[in-house]
C-alpha cells in the first residue's frame, strides 16, 4: 500500500492533547460517580433492569383468542416475510370446523432471528407480535428454537400488550 503523503500536524503527532482530553473525561466521571452515585449511568443488572420502550423488538409473542386458543391461522405470511427464514410452521386441520386451519407446530429459531419485525407487519390477524423480552440466552443450541407453547407463554411476560378481544 502506498503511504499517504499527508502528514499530521505536530499537535496531533504528539498525541498529548488528545490524551489529556481523554483523561479529563475519565476524571470527570470518576469524580461524579464518587461524589454523586445517583447519577451513575450503569444499571445494577440483574437486581435492576432497564425499562425498554414498548416498541422494543424482543422475543415474539403468539397472541391468543379470548378462549385461550392460538390466534394464528397458519397462513404462513410471517414465514414468507421473514428475511432470516427462521419461522417454521406446520399447518393442520383444526378440530373445530369453524376455525379450519391452525398451526400444529410453530417454531422460531431465535439464533437466526434478526428482530426485524417483518413477521408482525405481515400478520393479517394480529397473531404474532414482537415482545419486549430480551433475555434469550441458553445453554444449548436447540433451546433457541422456541415452540408454539413457548411463544404463547411469552405473552404472559408482557401481558398488558396482548389483551385484545
Amino acid at each position, binding site marked *: 500500500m502506498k503511504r499517504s503523503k499527508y502528514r499530521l500536524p505536530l499537535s496531533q503527532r504528539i498525541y498529548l492533547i488528545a490524551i489529556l482530553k481523554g483523561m479529563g473525561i475519565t476524571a470527570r466521571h470518576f469524580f461524579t460517580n464518587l461524589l454523586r452515585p445517583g447519577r451513575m449511568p450503569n444499571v445494577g443488572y440483574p437486581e435492576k433492569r432497564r425499562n425498554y420502550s414498548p416498541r422494543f423488538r424482543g422475543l415474539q409473542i403468539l397472541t391468543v383468542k379470548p378462549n385461550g386458543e392460538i390466534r394464528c391461522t397458519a*397462513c404462513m405470511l410471517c414465514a414468507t416475510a421473514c428475511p432470516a427464514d427462521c419461522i417454521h410452521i406446520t399447518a393442520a386441520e383444526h378440530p373445530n370446523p369453524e376455525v379450519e386451519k391452525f398451526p400444529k407446530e410453530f417454531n422460531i429459531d431465535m439464533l437466526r432471528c434478526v428482530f426485524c419485525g417483518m413477521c408482525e407487519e405481515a400478520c393479517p390477524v394480529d397473531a404474532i407480535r414482537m415482545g419486549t423480552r430480551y433475555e434469550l440466552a441458553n445453554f444449548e443450541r436447540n433451546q433457541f428454537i422456541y415452540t408454539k407453547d413457548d411463544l404463547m407463554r411469552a405473552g404472559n411476560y408482557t401481558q398488558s400488550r396482548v389483551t385484545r378481544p
Partner: protein
Amino acid sequence: MSTDVAVKKVSVTIDDKKVEVTPDKTVFQAAVEAGIFVPHYCYHPDLSIAGVCRMCLVEVDNAPKLQISCNTPVRDGMVVRTSSDKARQAQKGSLELHLINHPVDCPICDKAGECKLQDFYREFGLYKSRVELEDKVHKPKAKDIGTIVLDAERCILCTRCTRFTHEVTHTDELVIVNRGNRSELKTYDDGPLRNDYTGNLADICPVGALTARDFRFQQRVWFLEKKNSVCTMCARGCNTTVSVNPKTKKLYRVEPRRNPEVNKSWICDTGRWRYHYVYGESRLRTPEKISDGRVLESTWHQAFGEMKRALEDPSGIVIGLSTQLTNEEILELVLSFKESGVKHFVRIVDEQVIEERSPWDGVLKHRDHTPNAEGFARMFSMMNTKFLDCAGLAALVGEGNLRHAWFFGLEGEDVSWASRFVEALPEGVSLTLHATSRLPIWERAQWLLPAASAFEKSGTMVNALGRLQRLQAAIPRVSLARDGHAVAFGVQRGADRDAAPEARHVDLFEKLIAAPLLGREQVWKKLDPMGVALKERS
C-alpha cells in the same frame, strides 16, 4: 395442425395489434394468439363456453354494448379493444360483483397465491370495498366431498366444475342448486364425488371453492417450484407439473399440464395422488441382502460385487426389465449386460392388459399401469434384441441352467402384476430386485436394491399413443436409491465407485435414441414441452 387444408384466415385487430386467425375462432382465442390477456373465470380451453363470469367483456367495433370475448366469433376486419376505459370499467365492475359475497379468508385458503380473484384484484380492481362484512351471503364452508373439500361460500359460480363433471367425466355429481345469489355449488346428494378425475376440479376452480384434500394445508403455493414432467402411472403419459418446495426438496403435488394431444388439461386421481409411495413406509432406502429370511442392511458396493461375480458365467443370468424404466435406462442396461454376455431379457409388464383391444377408460386412463411398454418395444427393436414374455421365462427356467434373475425398475406399491414373473422362478434361482418399494411379493428375493422413482430420474418414455415425452427429475433421490444407469455402471465395475454421471441419459438419448426415432435433426430440446409424436411402429 395439418397444413394441407388451407383455411382462409381472417384478420382481427386487438388493442392495435393485428392478428390472423382461422374464422372458427372466438375473439378470446384470437386475443390469446395475439398474446393479449383478457381476464376471465368461466372460460376454459377444454370445456364448453358458459359465458357467465362476464369478466372478458371487450369493446367490439366501438359498439355501445360490450361483448364477452369468449363467445364472440371473429369477423374479418373486426376491431377489438380489451382494455379501453369502457372495457376496463366493465371488467372492474364484474370483478367487484364477484367479490362482494366472497369471504375474505385468504389466510386459510389453499388457493391463495394462485387465486384468480387475487390476481385480477391486483391487476384490474384495487378499489375500496363498499360492502360491510356482516352483509355477505353465507353458505356452507369446508364440506367434505371425498377427495375434494368444497367451500360453497368461496364459489363464484363460474360452472367450470359442473361442466367438467358433465362433459368430461359424464358423472354429473356437482350441481348448482337454487338461483340468484342463493345459488350454491354442491354434490346433488351431499355425497362424495364419484369419478376418477376429481383432482382436476381443484385445478380448474379459479378460486378456493374446490381444494384438494391431499394438498390441504400442506404448503402455501408460493413456496413451491414447478417442474415439467410426465405421469408414469399408466400408458397415457399425461403431461404434468410437479411442485416441489426448493427448501425442503419435497414433492407436494402433481398437477396436469395442458397438452391437447395427450391429456388436454386433465389427469386422473391415480396419477395425481399416488406419488405418496415416494415417501412411503415401504420405500426401499438402502440395498438389503436377505438370507435365511433375515433382512440385512447392506451396501451397493457389496451388491455390485456379488453381481459382478455372477456375471462371470453370463449364461445363467436372466435380466428382467420393467416397462416402467425410461428408454435410456433400458438401453443402458441391455447394452451393458449384452456386452457382458447375457443373452436372456424378459419384459416385465402387465401381460393381461398389454394386448387388450379397448384399453382406455373413455377419458384418459389406460389399463396398462406401466408407462413405457411402447418405448420398451421400440428400444428392443432398435437394438435388434429379442425379449421374453412370462411364458418365455418359464420355458427358460425349464431348460434348467438358470441361476440368477435380476429384475430392474419395479416402481410403486401396486405392482402385483409383476408377481407372476417372480413366481415363475424356482427356488434355486437367486433373485435380485431393483424396486422402489418393499412389498410382500418380493419376499423370495435375495437382494433388494432401492430404485429411483419416476420423480427422481430423468429420461424419455413413449406413451401408448406413440408419443415420445420427456421425464424430468423433480426431487433428489431418496437415500441410496439409484436409477438404471447407475446400476448398470456399478455392476460393470463390480464396485460402488465412479457412479454414472448425472447427465448420462442425455448422452444416451442424443447418441442412440434421437437419430433412429426422430431423425437426425431432432434433438433433446425439441421434446419440450409437449413431446413428439412418433411414426407408427412397424
